[in-house]
């Protein structure tokens, strides 16, 4: 039954495409439309190297993979820096250009005629000339790609990708280099598509530009949506369904002339209906995986006091004369702020005073128009946020920015600095070391959660937390960065007295360990209770600085602030 075998071979090839595309679409949350172009580059590289240069199959495959990865990375770089919908249009253009080049670079690609006579593969002395024999190889390769991608998805790297998808700013705030993450995800996905392309070339023994049109990308996209965005098994299942579906639709009696048009229309309609009624796909993303028992056993009590800086009162993070203009609006007008170790600094001031802007300037989320930021006297000029975190400065956001479609534990886990598995090569080359470290980190994450009182919630989705719990998780995530300087944007607002009583001691204890704490707060009682010093901001500059009680005795400030 060559026909069934052929269909199954196509299922395997499309499964490879769907799984690899799902890394970009589902895990990284990037929307690209050039997967068919990478499929094409993989197919053509193999075809050209084996037919024109007599290169053996395996080196040709490796060349195809590397070349496709590199082209993918280079082409997407400008758009990845900007993000958003730009990637869509750039990858769409890339798709058209690649097909154009295949059509026009006659000498190399055979032009519109394509390249025929691509050698068949041999496996253990057996030529894979029938669909049945090829299926064995195709299935093995598909399984291999599934395995590799599974390793990626469930590694710290994959976790960072999902964190970035959930909230790019928050991912940066815990030290993830989002441009690098996107680039690697994109290159990995492109390179995997090249594997499918290479298989296709050897299977059909002929490649031509028409086989890699944008419709192929859309088909693969449909497979992902149908199967489940972010779920690798779902992508493979989506591939199986959408390859088999047209074959099954042939059983429908349709008018001869328009049968295939109707089938295509049906496919478009199905795509819409799935998105409308089950947008998460048949197999929704699984992120609530069980916590290993070993991690639970290893988790002890967070030894916060082991982390102690000897010197107290030393200047750590400082901003001098920071200015920031947006068009005509002056958001910061010469902010001077020095934070000291072991000291909790409160930032108060009316709405629009520039408090959050000051945070953004100190943490690299905004570049100052003028002025300078330094850490222990060393300038932090022009550092992007994730680099600043590595200088041991971390911040939280007023609007929390949790990683919603991840577990509570994962929210904390992602924030640990210097994870082996943040680097993709470690995931593949040192899997056991990565795993061991990740289990140790899980135990630590449980300790952190225990510390803020969220241990029971560890395996639940961050989506399901109450507001107070979300605030606690923000603090836990911040703690996990192990940063020396912690900037908290309204960590206490909206909390009930009970939770406040729970959080305030945490903040004090952190300061006592010698960490530098700065928090934005409106509640003056809270300020009085937790802060050692307070800075009053208004009109984009620090108007007063001193002990909370002193500031609150200044009638001018009180008058302005109350108003």
């Amino acid at each position: 039954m060559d026909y069934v075998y052929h269909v199954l071979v196509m299922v395997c090839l499309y499964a490879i495409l769907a799984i690899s595309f799902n890394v970009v679409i589902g895990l990284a949350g990037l929307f690209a439309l050039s997967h068919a172009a990478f499929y094409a580059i993989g197919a053509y590289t193999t075809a050209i190297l084996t037919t024109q240069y007599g290169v053996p199959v395996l080196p040709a495959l490796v060349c195809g993979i590397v070349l496709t990865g590199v082209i993918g990375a280079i082409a997407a770089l400008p758009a990845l820096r900007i993000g958003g919908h730009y990637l869509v249009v750039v990858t769409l253009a890339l798709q058209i250009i690649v097909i154009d080049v295949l059509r026009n670079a006659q000498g190399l690609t055979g032009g519109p005629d394509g390249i025929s006579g691509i050698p068949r593969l041999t496996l253990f002395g057996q030529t894979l000339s029938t669909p049945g024999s090829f299926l064995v190889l195709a299935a093995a390769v598909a399984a291999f790609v599934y395995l590799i991608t599974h390793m990626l998805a469930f590694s710290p790297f994959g976790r960072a990708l999902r964190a970035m998808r959930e909230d790019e700013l928050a991912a940066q705030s815990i030290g993830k280099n989002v441009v690098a993450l996107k680039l690697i995800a994109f290159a990995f996905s492109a390179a995997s598509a090249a594997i499918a392309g290479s298989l296709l070339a050897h299977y059909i023994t002929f490649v031509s530009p028409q086989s890699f049109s944008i419709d192929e990308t859309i088909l693969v996209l449909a497979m992902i949506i149908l199967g489940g965005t972010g779920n690798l098994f779902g992508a493979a299942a989506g591939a199986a369904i959408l390859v088999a579906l047209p074959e099954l639709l042939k059983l429908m009696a349709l008018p001869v002339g328009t049968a295939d048009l109707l089938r295509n229309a049906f496919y478009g309609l199905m795509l819409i209906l799935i998105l409308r009624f089950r947008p998460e796909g048949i197999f929704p993303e699984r992120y609530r995986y069980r916590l290993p028992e070993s991690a639970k056993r290893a988790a002890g009590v967070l030894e916060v006091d082991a982390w102690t800086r000897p010197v107290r009162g030393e200047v750590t993070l400082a901003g001098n004369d920071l200015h920031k203009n947006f068009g005509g609006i002056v958001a910061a007008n010469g902010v001077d702020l020095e934070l000291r170790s072991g000291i909790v600094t409160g930032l108060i001031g009316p709405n629009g005073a520039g408090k959050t802007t000051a945070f953004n300037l100190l943490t690299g989320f905004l570049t100052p128009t003028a002025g300078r930021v330094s850490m222990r006297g060393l300038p932090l000029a022009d550092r992007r946020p994730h680099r600043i975190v590595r200088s041991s400065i971390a911040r939280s956001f007023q609007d929390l920015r949790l990683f919603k479609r991840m577990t509570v534990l994962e929210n904390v886990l992602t924030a640990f600095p210097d994870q082996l598995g943040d680097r993709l090569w470690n995931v593949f080359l040192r899997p056991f070391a990565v795993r061991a470290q990740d289990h140790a980190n899980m135990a630590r994450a449980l300790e952190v959660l225990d510390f803020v009182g969220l241990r029971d919630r560890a395996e639940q989705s961050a989506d399901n937390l109450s507001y107070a719990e979300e605030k606690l998780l923000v603090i836990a995530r911040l703690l996990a960065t192990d940063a020396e300087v912690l900037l908290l944007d309204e960590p206490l607002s909206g909390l009930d007295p009970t939770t406040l009583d729970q959080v305030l001691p945490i903040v004090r204890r952190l300061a006592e360990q010698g960490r530098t704490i700065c928090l934005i707060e409106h509640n003056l009682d809270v300020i009085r209770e937790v802060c050692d010093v307070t800075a009053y901001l208004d009109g984009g500059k620090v108007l007063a600085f001193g002990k909370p009680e002193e500031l609150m005795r200044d009638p001018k400030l009180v008058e302005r602030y109350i108003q």
Partner: protein
Amino acid sequence: MDLILQLLANGVSNGSQYALLGIGFGLIFGTTGIVHFAYGPVLAASAYVMWWLAASLGLPFPVALVLGVAFAGIAGVVAYLVLYEPLLARGSPSFVVLVASLGLFILVSNMMAVLFGTDAKTLSDISYGIYVLGDVVITGVQLVQIAVFVIIAVGLAIFLRTSAWGNAIRAVTDNVAMARIIGIDTRKVAIVVFALGSMISAIGAANILVRDGASTHIGFFAVFYAFISVVVGGVGSVWGAAIGGLLLGLVESAGMWKLPTEWQSTIAFMVLFVVMLWRPTGLLRGN
């Protein structure tokens, strides 16, 4: 020398068409943030509607044109209400909305082939003049294309500057959250831009119908060029899309002066990469 002049003339006229399509697409994209791929099939469908009214029912072309434009406006709004709004309401990520519009694209273009047949649709009784200026030849359609673009671009710019709806649209384009705070009904604004944008696409569709005839696949390139025009020129302004479209037309035409013409689209889309590297937010909105 006459060749480059001719190429420039062609570039301006084709660029005007891209710019026109870009203005409509950009109005929707800039205001709602929706990548409305179904802009393409709406355009193609309105071309078919005009053809059907004019060729099969024998209505005069201006009447068919008006009805076709109205049809596109309604189709655009229906696409928004039936497809996009429910998805946005449940907080679907933007790519889900985008894939949905691709689904609509597939559905509509295949159904048009089923309903109207696969052959090209042309209007045989429309004739237009051909004008010779020195060595340059310009057809009536080309002139109309340029004129229509200028009129609509200026008209839309005035509308956006002076009318209440225009102000609301600009406010939403600038900052949706802020617009909501000051009491603008963003849903109504979305409906208005979908109607306006789609109607503009129908005028582009009329150009295509008269010039080259309509086929089921005219939508893809239309929406693609529109999208690129907007991104090259800068999202969120009429003039951005206009400049992007004209640039695309000129590069595609005059850029081929000394180059083999088969590389046309490659060269044109390279412009996109260059612009994105040099001015990532587009020519007009670069920071």
